[in-house]
């Protein structure tokens, strides 16, 4: 009997017996539970074979984070994060699967570069200016219970404030620090010179905000109230008010993306008063 033929027979017998149909190759042996992704740098996940499909989506384009997941080769998955404006890493559950098993990998996208302001464009053609806006400045009923006429005084600019306001539509307060980082950028806002807006370096922080400054310079108005009378007093303030819309143009040097943010600048300044009744004023 040929010894060689028997050895071959034995090996063939074993090979035909092997139960290869019940075994599958693990497509992700030793796959880490978490993969860190840096903005701007492709991250490649290697698999042991091509028996897998991507269960998650391929493109994620949110306002504060943007990344793509692409099967770049039968055994490779490439993640590219172009932008992550969060201050903390952004976690995303990536899922891959085959006919028998689903695997989850946590993608941890590290924060990337913030935006910077390139320019601010004001819509001068559609601005608004009013010089004689009247608004209440205070008042009260003054009663003289004495037997002689009495002199009272009132500070007409007691409640007068210069107000500057930046407002934005459809943006929350925490949007700006996320997009631009801290400290927030300053934008130049107009000043009114003889009723005309002028840009000459006065700036405000790019944030929905209201800046107020009291204009009470101690001006006092004295008036007389006869004995036993009650005098109703009203003070009106003359204000100048100005509104102008603007657009902030910003860009991200890391991702190359650009954004525009629309807002409005509002300005109001009381500059004079009207005391009523004027005939009660003591010059």
């Amino acid at each position, binding site marked *: 009997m040929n010894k060689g033929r028997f050895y071959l027979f*034995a090996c063939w017998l074993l090979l035909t017996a092997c139960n290869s149909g019940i075994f599958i190759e693990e497509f992700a042996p030793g796959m880490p539970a978490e993969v860190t992704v840096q903005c701007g740098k492709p991250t490649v996940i290697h698999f042991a074979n091509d028996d897998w499909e991507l269960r998650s989506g391929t493109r994620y384009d949110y306002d504060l984070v943007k990344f793509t997941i692409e099967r770049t080769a039968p055994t490779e998955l490439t993640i590219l994060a172009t932008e992550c404006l969060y201050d903390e890493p952004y976690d995303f559950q990536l899922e891959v699967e085959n006919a028998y098993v689903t695997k989850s990998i946590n993608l941890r996208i590290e924060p990337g570069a913030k935006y910077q302001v390139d320019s601010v464009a004001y819509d001068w053609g559609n601005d608004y200016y009013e010089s004689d806006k009247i608004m209440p400045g205070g008042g009260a009923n003054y009663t003289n219970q004495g037997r002689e006429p009495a002199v009272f005084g009132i500070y007409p600019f007691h409640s007068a404030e210069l107000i500057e306001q930046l407002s934005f539509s459809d943006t929350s307060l925490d949007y700006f620090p996320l997009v631009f980082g801290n400290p927030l950028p300053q934008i130049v806002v107009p000043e009114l010179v003889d009723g005309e807006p002028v840009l000459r370096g006065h700036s405000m922080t790019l944030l929905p905000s209201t800046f107020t400054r009291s204009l009470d310079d101690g001006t006092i108005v004295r008036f007389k109230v006869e004995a036993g009378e009650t005098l109703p007093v009203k003070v009106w303030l003359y204000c100048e008010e100005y509104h102008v819309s603007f657009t902030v143009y910003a860009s991200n040097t890391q991702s190359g993306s650009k954004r525009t943010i629309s807002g409005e600048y509002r300005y109001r300044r009381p500059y004079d008063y009207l005391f009523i009744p004027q005939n009660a004023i003591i010059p």
Partner: protein
Amino acid sequence: MRPLYIIYIALATLLSVGNLATLRAAEPDSTRQKLIHRVGIDLFPGYVLPTHDFFEGTNRQGEPINTTMSAHLKWAFQFAPDSYFGRNYPHASQGIGLAYNSFFNQQEIGSPVALYVFQTSRIASLSERLSLDYEWNFGASFGWKPYDEFTNDYNNIVGSKTNAYINLGLMLNYRLTPDWSLTLGAGFTHFSNGNTSYPNAGVNTVGGRIGVVRTFGAGQWTPRRYAPDPFTRHISYDLVLYGAVRKRAYIPSDPSLGVLLPGHFGVLGLNFNPMYNVSRYFRAGLSLDAQYDESANLSGHVVNPGASAEELKFYRPPFREQFAVGLSVRAEIVMPIFAINIGVGRNIICKGKDTDHFYQILALKTHLTKGLFLHVGYQLYKFKDPNNLMLGIGYRFHSKR
């Protein structure tokens, strides 16, 4: 049992009986027949051991299955007394047998027919005509009615139409005349498929045996004993390479969810067994046993637990969990052409509960040449639970027989 294994066993039988008998029978004197032929008929009435409730009455008939009867037709040959085997093994004869077995339950068990090789020899001479002999049978049995969930659902004993057949018996041999003998004795019979199919609980019987043997050609020999050849004690080295297939069940933490995995798994092994030849009948030694079992330690690598048997998938376990190396103590009874090897061992290099255990081996070696032999064996654990077959080929180095 897979058809390929039947071919293997049949080939072993025919080659061994034909090949080595021819080689060893060639002696200088050509005036007399080289072989003495025998034809025999045996009847084996027996008792089926109630190792499972199927035999105790949980079957379609609702009656215990405890009796069996088999009829055997055998042809054997004995080497001429002046030949090598005739001088050194004067009472050994070996041959082929055909048996018809009945368990009196045709519908659920069937009436399998067994084809086997056998060998018989004398243990002790009790008188001039009476001797105490032993006989072993090994082969395959065909025609079983296996388990079927629809048509044969009570029979969770036999999982295949073909099963191995093993018998060991002791008998009194009374020579009526030089040509005719009567035999009377008892024996134990085992049927199973070596875990190549499930279920495989095994069928075991004990019983008596009665037979008659007609010898042809014994008269030409003068009744004198030829002196055996001198025997030198020595160490020989057996190297065996074997393979097999087996089934495996997957038993999760909840045993009620256990399933039989589809398909068959491969087993491949190597034994290196130096043995001290104590006498021409016996040798013993240690064996280094290495085995790879494709089905070992799967339970820790399930892909989709809870799936059905057909959909269950596994990751291939590390090689370390499917390969084991053990040491066993072996004893071998040596006769013409055949040797029976028995071993008890323990895996030493192993990982996982499927390989971390003791094991037992029962093997039949069939010599094709002085060094080359076929190996048909069975690995068990707990002395009763089958692990896998061991079908292969071996070579003996440094034999001084």
